[in-house]
């Protein structure tokens, strides 16, 4: 696949953010995923050319980071935290439930291309455990059932919105553009904080009143 001139211009503007252009390799890879959905050889070769690197150097970087995918993922990529705390509090059960429900294994994609599944490591939301991420948006305090409902809503084309995130769940490619540093205008949507984040503050205020 080749890249349009406006896509190439965006790439050049990403490169221009940095004092040295090699630094732009990661946002460029995110950007490539926003176009292709995963890291293609075309993307690697174009990035290498733009950054005056060998393709091997770009490829070496892309394989180091787990968010860069070697093959297409679903329109909605679902990650279930199975690090210790989420796992024991229900993450393992959720992951097992989703595998069965979707009929896919880890890193699998449903036949309709809608949903892919991955078990992920700690996603910095432990006070909302068990946590599920979809296109790297927070779905807090999940249960086996709520997770199944979530993927069902995705397959039905009307994904439930994240608990702490934008008003609606954006697809994988749109999300990748955000990770490339392109503002999609949804920053002001959603809550500023979930309940657990405010717990200490509330207790403190209550203490001050009482």
């Amino acid at each position, binding site marked *: 696949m080749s890249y349009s001139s406006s896509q190439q211009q965006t790439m050049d503007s990403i490169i221009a953010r940095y004092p040295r252009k090699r630094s732009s390799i990661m946002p460029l890879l995110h950007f490539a995923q926003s176009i292709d959905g995963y890291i293609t050889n075309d993307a690697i070769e174009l990035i290498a050319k733009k950054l005056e690197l060998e393709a091997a150097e770009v490829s070496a970087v892309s394989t180091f980071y787990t968010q860069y995918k070697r093959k297409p993922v679903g329109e909605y990529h679902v990650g279930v935290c199975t690090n210790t705390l989420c796992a024991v509090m229900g993450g393992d059960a959720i992951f097992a439930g989703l595998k069965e429900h979707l009929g896919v294994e880890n890193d699998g994609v449903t036949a309709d291309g809608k949903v892919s599944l991955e078990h992920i490591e700690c996603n*910095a939301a432990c006070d909302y455990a068990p946590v599920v991420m979809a296109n790297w948006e927070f779905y807090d305090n999940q249960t086996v059932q709520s997770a199944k409902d979530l993927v069902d809503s995705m397959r039905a084309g009307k994904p439930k919105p994240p608990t702490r995130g934008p008003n609606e769940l954006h697809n994988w490619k749109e999300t990748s553009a955000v990770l490339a540093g392109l503002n999609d205008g949804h920053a002001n949507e959603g809550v500023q904080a979930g309940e657990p984040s*405010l717990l200490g503050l509330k207790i403190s205020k209550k203490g001050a009143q009482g």
Partner: protein
Amino acid sequence: MTKLTPVLSAHWDEKDSFTLEGYKRHGGYTASAKALKMEPDAIIQQVKDSGLRGRGGAGFPTGMKWGFIPQGDNKDHYLVVNADESEPGTCKDTPLLLANPHVLIEGMIIGSYAIRAKYAFIYIRGEVTHVVRRMQQAIEDAYKAGYLGKNIFGSGVDLELVLHVGAGAYICGEETALLDSLEGFRGQPRLRPPFPAIAGLYARPTVVNNVESIASVPSIISNGAEWFQSMGTEKSKGMTLYSLSGHVANPGQFEAPLGITLREILELAGGIRKGHQLKFWTPGGSSTPLFTVEHLDTPLDYEGVSAAGSMLGTKALQIFDETTCIVRAVLRWTEFYKHESCGKCTPCREGTWWLVQILKDLESGKGTEADLDKLIDLCDNIMGRSFCALADGAASPIVSSLKYFRSEYMDHLRNGGCPFDPHASTLFDKAGV
């Protein structure tokens, strides 16, 4: 009155706390305006005087770190904020940036000015899209307001700030791996010396600070070093975010002076979940050796936790009750370290590969008591032998769990498998709801 001291989190309960207006409503960006009128060295001195120490885990004095940057060297300097929050259990910077990204920007303006950096970066993990959005928007708003870019606040000072989004690698939380990653390489730790203060980003003097450390700076500039010093303990000053998670009645963020105890926090949070008892917990993420009930009154400051045989780390208090199998918990953490090992050095790469296999066998009841000694010996061959601290973190839960729960490992062997009901530790009813 509670012991809690919300400063960073003081306004998180306002709906627009993350916006420029929301931030300015409570004096946002006045500290940076004030700082830009100070001598840079005076800022460094004030931060030194405050006693602020790194909130990312190591606890290195922030002002001292800034003071290491050579001045008058005619080189570019860089400030890099480590927002790659990935340590299991750690969930403080993420809600902070979701609710108030501007406080980080303001801290970075002050820090960059102090160390004479004209370019600053935020390295944020890539798995938190909405935090990335909020941060990106805040940066754009700050540029529009004249707080970033050329001649900020009309002071004649320039500052470019770039948000750099990671792509899934825990190791990039290690500051030199972060710098390699930011330079566009595989995120593997660098040989030290040279330290980042001398040769960091692009081999130029660089300060790498945690989000919470930098976010604490505006309050220090506004309220003074003495105000900050008035909180905390003798060598651990100020307030900080404690993140309580796991089998507790009410998990969440608790901003309190350093030195508060888990017992005090649990009392505020309503205790362990109903009908259960505390079994073990981490004081600062999975890399810090486990604590048990006997450590409920350990002061949660750098010295107190260290004296009790662990580390304050990121103050990620992960609480596990008696339904949790220690072997399963430790195996899962070990799998995490294996997954996140960068592969550079032998003990971490091969050691975590091996430890996982042994622990898997033990969990399923295979092995003998000699395997427990082998585990300890392998951990001894990993700890302090690897290139960076990741592998030390991998060994911590194993060694500490064998210290406190060796008999539970033995139960697995005697039982021919795990004696725990995994469902009992979940928050679900039988139907998984």
